[in-house]
C-alpha cells in the first residue's frame, strides 16, 4: 500500500511542475522579462506587417467585385435591407488598419494595447474576408451576428467560469464536461417540469455539483487538478452519452425542452437594422453581458476579488493574513460550476433539438483558449469568444452558401488560433501563479 501511495504522490508532484503556471517566472530578473516583452512586441509587429501586406495584396486584386450584404430591418425573418460595398474598399480599410497597427506597435513597443486593436480589426477582417469569399453572393449579416453570438455565449460564460476558478488557484480544464452536463440536465429539467427557467437553473446546479467534486478531489485528496479535470470531462461524456442512448432517445419526451426564446426589448428592438441585431436576442445574451460586467467589477474592485486573486497568486501570503484559502477556493469553484452549467444549458435550450451526444463539441476547450487569450480578464475573454464565434459563424455561412472552400480548414481555425495564443508567440500572458498547485493550510 505504501508503495502505491508514494508513486501516486510522485505523479502529483511531477505534473504540478509542468502545469502552465510556470509560463513566466514571476520574479525572474526584471531586465530579462523586459527584453522578452520587447521581443514579443517585435514579433507582433512582424505578424501585423504580414497581415498588412496580405491585405494590400488582396485589395489590389479585388477591384470591381462587390460584396453584397443584407440585414433584416424590422425583425428576424422579416424584410431585408440590401446593400453592397466594393470589396476593394473593405480591404482598403483593413489594409489601412493593419498598417496603422503595425506602425503603432513599432513605435509604442510593449506598451501598445494590441489586444484591443485586434478586437477592433478582427470584425472588419472577417467581414472583408466574407465579402471576398462570397464573390457576389448575398450574405445576411443579421444571421451572421446572431450565429456569432450563439457560439460566443457558451464559450464566453465558460471562459468566465475558467477565470473565476483559476484566479482562485484551481486549474479548471473541466469546463467542457460541465457544459455537457449542464446541457443534458438543463434539457431534462426543462422537459419534465415544463417550466422554462428550470433548464438554466438545473444546468447551473449540476455544473456546481461537478465543480465541487473537482474541488474536493483537488483540495482534499490533492489529486492533480489536470487529472481531476480529465476525470470530469471523460465521465461527463460517458454519462451523458449513456443516458442519452438509454433514456432520452427511446423516451424523447424527456428531451423536448421549453426553448428559451429571444426577447424583444420594447422600443429598442424596433430600431431599424440595429434592433434585430442587438435588442431581439436570447435572454442568455443579456445575462452573459451582465455576468461579465459584474465579475469584472467583483474581481478587480472588491475585497472578495482581492482575496480571490491573492489565493491564486500567493495562497500562503493570503493565508498568513487570515484568508481561509480552502474555503475561498471551494466557493470560487462553486461559482465557476454554476456559471459553466448555466452556459451549458444554453447549448441545449437555445436551439430546437434539445440535447445530443457530445453536443458541446469542444466549446469548453475553446473557452479555455479564450481565458488565456483574454489574460484572465473577463471582458477580454468575452472579446476572444466573440472573435472565435465569428470564425465559426463565417464557416457556417460560407458552407451554407456552397462556397468552394474546404470547410475543414475554417473549422480548424479556432483550434489553430488557440495554439498560437497559448504558445504566446504574440505576447506572453501570465497565469495566476498558483493555479494548479495544491495548497497546504497549516
Amino acid at each position, binding site marked *: *500500500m505504501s*508503495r*502505491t*501511495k508514494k*508513486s*501516486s504522490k*510522485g*505523479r*502529483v*508532484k*511531477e*505534473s504540478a*511542475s*509542468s*502545469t*502552465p503556471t*510556470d*509560463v*513566466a517566472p514571476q520574479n525572474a530578473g526584471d531586465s530579462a522579462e523586459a527584453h522578452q516583452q520587447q521581443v514579443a512586441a517585435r514579433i507582433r509587429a512582424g505578424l501585423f506587417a504580414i497581415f498588412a501586406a496580405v491585405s494590400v495584396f488582396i485589395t489590389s486584386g479585388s477591384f470591381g467585385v462587390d460584396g453584397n450584404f443584407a440585414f433584416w430591418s424590422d425583425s428576424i425573418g422579416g424584410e431585408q435591407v440590401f446593400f453592397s460595398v466594393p470589396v476593394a474598399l473593405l480591404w482598403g480599410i483593413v489594409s489601412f488598419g493593419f498598417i496603422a497597427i503595425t506602425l503603432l506597435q513599432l513605435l509604442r513597443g510593449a506598451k501598445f494595447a494590441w489586444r484591443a486593436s485586434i478586437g477592433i480589426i478582427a470584425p472588419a477582417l472577417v467581414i472583408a474576408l466574407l465579402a471576398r469569399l462570397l464573390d457576389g453572393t448575398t450574405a445576411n449579416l443579421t444571421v451572421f451576428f446572431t450565429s456569432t453570438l450563439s457560439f460566443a455565449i457558451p464559450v464566453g460564460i465558460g471562459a468566465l467560469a475558467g477565470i473565476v476558478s483559476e484566479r482562485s488557484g484551481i486549474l479548471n480544464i473541466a469546463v467542457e464536461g460541465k457544459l455537457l452536463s449542464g446541457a443534458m440536465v438543463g434539457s431534462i429539467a426543462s422537459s419534465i417540469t415544463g417550466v422554462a427557467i428550470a433548464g438554466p437553473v438545473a444546468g447551473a446546479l449540476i455544473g456546481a455539483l461537478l465543480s465541487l467534486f473537482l474541488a474536493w*478531489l483537488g483540495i*482534499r*485528496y490533492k*489529486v*492533480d487538478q*489536470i*487529472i*481531476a479535470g*480529465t*476525470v*470530469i470531462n*471523460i*465521465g461527463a*461524456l*460517458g*454519462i451523458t*452519452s*449513456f*443516458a442519452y*442512448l*438509454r*433514456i432520452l432517445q*427511446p*423516451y424523447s419526451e424527456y428531451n423536448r425542452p421549453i426553448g428559451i426564446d429571444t426577447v424583444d426589448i420594447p422600443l429598442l428592438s424596433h430600431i431599424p437594422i440595429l434592433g434585430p441585431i442587438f435588442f431581439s436576442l436570447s435572454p442568455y445574451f443579456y445575462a452573459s453581458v451582465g455576468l461579465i460586467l459584474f465579475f469584472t467589477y467583483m474581481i478587480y474592485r472588491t475585497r472578495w476579488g482581492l482575496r480571490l486573486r491573492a489565493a491564486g497568486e500567493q495562497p500562503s501570503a493570503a493565508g498568513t493574513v487570515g484568508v481561509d484559502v480552502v474555503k475561498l477556493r471551494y466557493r470560487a469553484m462553486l461559482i465557476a460550476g454554476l456559471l459553466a452549467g448555466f452556459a451549458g444549458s444554453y447549448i441545449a435550450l437555445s436551439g430546437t433539438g434539445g440535447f445530443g451526444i457530445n453536443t458541446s463539441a469542444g466549446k469548453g*476547450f475553446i473557452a479555455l*483558449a479564450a481565458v*488565456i487569450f483574454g489574460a484572465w480578464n473577463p471582458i477580454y475573454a468575452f472579446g476572444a469568444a466573440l472573435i472565435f464565434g465569428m470564425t465559426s459563424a463565417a464557416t457556417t455561412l460560407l458552407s451554407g452558401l456552397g462556397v468552394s472552400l*474546404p470547410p*475543414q*480548414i475554417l473549422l*480548424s481555425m479556432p*483550434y*489553430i488560433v*488557440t*495554439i498560437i495564443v*497559448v*504558445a*504566446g*508567440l504574440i505576447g*506572453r500572458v501570465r497565469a495566476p501563479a498558483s493555479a494548479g498547485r495544491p495548497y497546504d*493550510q497549516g
Partner: protein
Amino acid sequence: MNRIGAMASKLRVPALSIFVALFIGALFIIFTDVEVLGRLLSDPIGALGLGVGRAATAYSALLRGAFGDPETIGKALASGGDVQLWARALRPIVESVVASVPLIFVGLGVSVAFRTGIFNIGGAGQYTMGAVGGTLAALIFGGGVTPAPIAIILVMIFGLIGGALWAFIPGFLKARVGASEVITTIMLNFIAAQFVFFLVSNVEFIQKPPRIQPVSKELSQFVDLPGILPIESLRLDIGIIVALLTAVAVSWFLFRSTRGFELRTAGLNIAAAKYAGMGAASSIITAMLISGAISGLGGALVAVGTVKQLSPGIAGSVGFTAIAIALVGGTRPSGVVATALVFGLLQHGGSLMQVTTSIPIEMLLFIQALVIAFIAAPELTLGIVKNPFVRRSKSVTK
C-alpha cells in the same frame, strides 16, 4: 519481503479501482432503467430485483463477449480439431486482444510523456496522424509497388513519423515558450480529426471511389498485415507482436538507458534535472517525439491491419482510455500492457453487451473516469473499501 506479497500490494489499488468502478457502473445500469424507475415506488423490492437481474444479464453478456461463451468452448473441446468450432469459440477472446492493441500503443506513448512530467492528452491526435502516415504509405508503396515486407515496414515508419511530427508541435512549444501541453494537445486532436476529414473528402488519391463517403480506399487491397494465428478467420495480426516488442523497448529505454533516466528525472523534479546539467527542453521534446511516435505506430498498424480504412473518427475514445490505462498501469510498460488487455476485454465485451442488452458501450467511458479518479486518489479507494461509514482521519483533509 516476498515477491508475491509485494505484487499483491501493488495490484491492490488498481484492481480495487476497476472493481469499484464496475460496481458503480452496475448501479448506473439499474437506476437508468426506466422500467425499474417506474416500479421503484410501488414495488421497490420487485423493481430492485428486476434491476439487479438486468445488471447481471448485462455483465454476463460482457463476460461472454470478452472471454467467449463456455458452451461454445465446450463444443469446440468436444469436437477435437474442428476448425470452425474453434474459430467460433476463440473469436471473442481474440477480438478482445485485437481491441487492446491500439490501447497498448497509445497507453505506452502517453506513459512516456507522463514519466517526463508532461500531460500529453494528445494521444488521439498522434494516433490519428500515425494512421494518416500509415495510410499514405500503404497507398503509395502497397499494391505491389514494393515487396510486401518492405511496404509493411514503410507503413510502420510513416506511422512513426506522422505521430512524432504531431507530438513535436506541443513538445517544442512547451520546451521553448512554456505553452501548456494540455491545451495544445487537445487542440491538435481536433485539428487532426478535421485534417483527416479534409483528406478523405477532398483528395482523390485517398478517398474511396465513387467519392461520396468521407472514408479512404480499402487498404487491404494495398497492404495486408500477416496474421499470427493458425486459424485464418481470426484476425490477430503482427500488430500485437509489434505492440509487445514496443513495450519491451520502452521498458528498456525508461529504466535502463541514460536518456530514459534523464527523462524520468525531469519528470520527478525539473529543477534538479536542470541543476544536474540535463537539458530540460531537450528532455521534453525527446519525450514528446517518442510518445507521439509510439501512438502513431499504433495508428498506422491498426488503420492498415485491423480497420483497413482511414476515417475521421478513427481514434474513437482511445485517447481517453489511454490516459486511464497509463495511470492504472502506473506508467510502467508491463502495467500498461496488462491494463490494456483488461480494457480490451471490457471494450469487446462491452460491444456484445450493447448488442444483446442494448446497454450503451458509452458506459465504459464513465467507468474509465471513475477508475482514473480512484487511481489518482488512492486514499479514496482504500477508504471506500475499508470503512465506508467512518470518515477518514483528518490528516488527509487539512
